[in-house]
């Protein structure tokens, strides 16, 4: 894929995702307040901050689930702040939810297969007129989904309804589901909460490897050691604003950050 590689190197210096002056108010209270951010290809940006800092709201804005009260979002060079959530993956961005949202009645395997993009079988007429194409697409999707499930140690549960999964397993399922779509930018909202430490390590390695291949990650995580281990840059939020941003070491040493976590922040 020469064209693809060329495009990647062209966009390397330009940000893959950029937000400017992003504001979201709920009943007059600004959950996200004038946030600027810019992430380049292959970067892993940590987003940290105390409970209620606005991290998940920021993700919901970036993912198109909330309309910003003000501000712009640029994804791979296109303005997307008004585009609906369902168009984000086609534009290159995927996300997971802080509180996992599995399709409980569907099997674990089907959940992951739903991450497939441009699947022939998801078009009405292809099912009637080109069943063999649908069958092939379905076989490929299944193979890829099983690979991801094996990586997440969920393969033995592939046929079970997703509602039987534990919280940690649901987190892994969400991760598999979004990886299935192979997005260029991935928003991960506390993907490791409740996941076994051994698997956390494997997952961090996998994320780092994908980032080296050019995938960009935004990672919300409360476990600061993990942030320090995988992120090149960290953005600290407090009361909706960006308090500090910089390298993990610099940020974690900043006295304002410790203060924010202790709840002493004032705007």
């Amino acid at each position: 894929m020469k064209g693809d590689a060329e495009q990647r190197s062209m966009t390397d210096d330009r940000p893959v995702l950029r937000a400017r002056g992003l504001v979201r108010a709920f009943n007059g209270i600004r959950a996200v307040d004038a946030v600027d951010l810019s992430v380049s290809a292959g970067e892993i940006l940590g987003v940290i901050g105390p409970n209620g800092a606005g991290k998940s709201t920021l993700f919901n804005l970036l993912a198109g689930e909330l309309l910003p009260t003000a501000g712009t979002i640029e994804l791979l060079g296109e303005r997307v702040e008004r585009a609906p959530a369902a168009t984000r993956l086609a534009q290159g961005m995927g996300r997971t939810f802080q509180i996992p949202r599995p399709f409980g009645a569907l099997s674990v395997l089907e959940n992951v297969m739903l991450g497939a993009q441009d699947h022939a079988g998801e078009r009405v007429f292809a099912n009637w007129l080109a069943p063999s194409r649908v069958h092939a697409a379905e076989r490929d999707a299944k193979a890829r989904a099983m690979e991801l499930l094996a990586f997440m140690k969920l393969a033995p549960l592939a046929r079970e309804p997703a509602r039987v999964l534990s919280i940690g397993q649901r987190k892994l399922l969400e991760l598999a589901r979004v990886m299935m779509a192979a997005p260029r930018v991935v928003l991960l909202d506390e993907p490791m909460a409740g996941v076994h430490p051994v698997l956390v390590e494997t997952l961090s390695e996998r994320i780092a490897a994908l980032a080296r291949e050019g995938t960009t990650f935004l990672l919300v995580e409360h476990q600061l050691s993990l942030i320090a281990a995988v992120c090149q840059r960290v953005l600290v939020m407090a009361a909706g604003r960006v308090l500090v941003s910089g390298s993990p070491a610099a940020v974690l040493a900043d006295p304002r950050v410790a203060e924010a976590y202790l709840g002493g922040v004032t705007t």
Partner: protein
Amino acid sequence: MSGALSGWLAYAASFGVLVLVQGVACLGLNLQWGQTGLFNVGVAGLVAVGAYTSAILTSAAVAGHSGGFGLPVVVGCLGAVLVAGAVSGLLGLLTLRLRTDYLAITTFGVAVVIDLLIRNLTGLTGGPLGIGFIPRPFESLGLGADAFRAVSFVWVALVVLLAYLLLERLVASPWGRVLRALREDERAAAALGKSPTRYRLQSFVIGGALMGLAGALQAHTLGFIAPENYSAALTFQVWAMLIIGGSGNNRGALLGSVLVVALWSATGLLAANVLPPDWQARGAALRIVAIGVLLAAAILWRPRGLMGESVTVSRHLDHD
């Protein structure tokens, strides 16, 4: 064949045609409500659109009337499917982005408008008198009345079988999987790139097209249609079929049709033979009450219907 036996068979065939015609509408509603969760209370309106479209396309020209194109029945049926699908598409485009209760109100409103149109566009629809002499397939063969009924049953059954198979294929496909995901968690499905509006619209259009097909089949088996065939009672019957048979299950939808049509016919016979003459007019209302009682009993004792929702997976996943 003895006269009594062939008479009985002919009765069964007519009964079967009724079941199949309403069953197709019920399959359409099952796609909309059972698979997608779209509340359509304008079923009768879409059946009417199909019936009148096909009747106008296929009937012979009559002096003083527009329409009457004299086209083949197949063309009429396809036209019914397309026009009813288009009407549903328009309705869906206007309402599916809004909250779901708007859809219910709008479908009801559209059914009322369609009823007014077919009553008042006299030049095209015959107004309150309706349209007569609609071509019925195989009528020209000159079969006896009983044989003709049996033949009608067979061709209608083949059409319904085709619709059923196409629908089953769709439900047990990756497309059907997206519908089930959307019904369970719209936000998560949207995050996976599945546009809720797009899939709902598709489901609504296909369901509406099937209702249109039901209307066309009815027109071409009865041979005449009139506005009172498409009252709110029809919508109620189709809903009762779906809830009694089992929402989310195509076979349940058909079983529900058998039961409701059977009850409808039985109460009709009963009313005609048992009720005193001055009560006859109230008979129709009593039949609706009978279906209502069956519906209430189903909701009380079998809330998921006789068959319940079937666990469906993509048919491509079963074999390996």
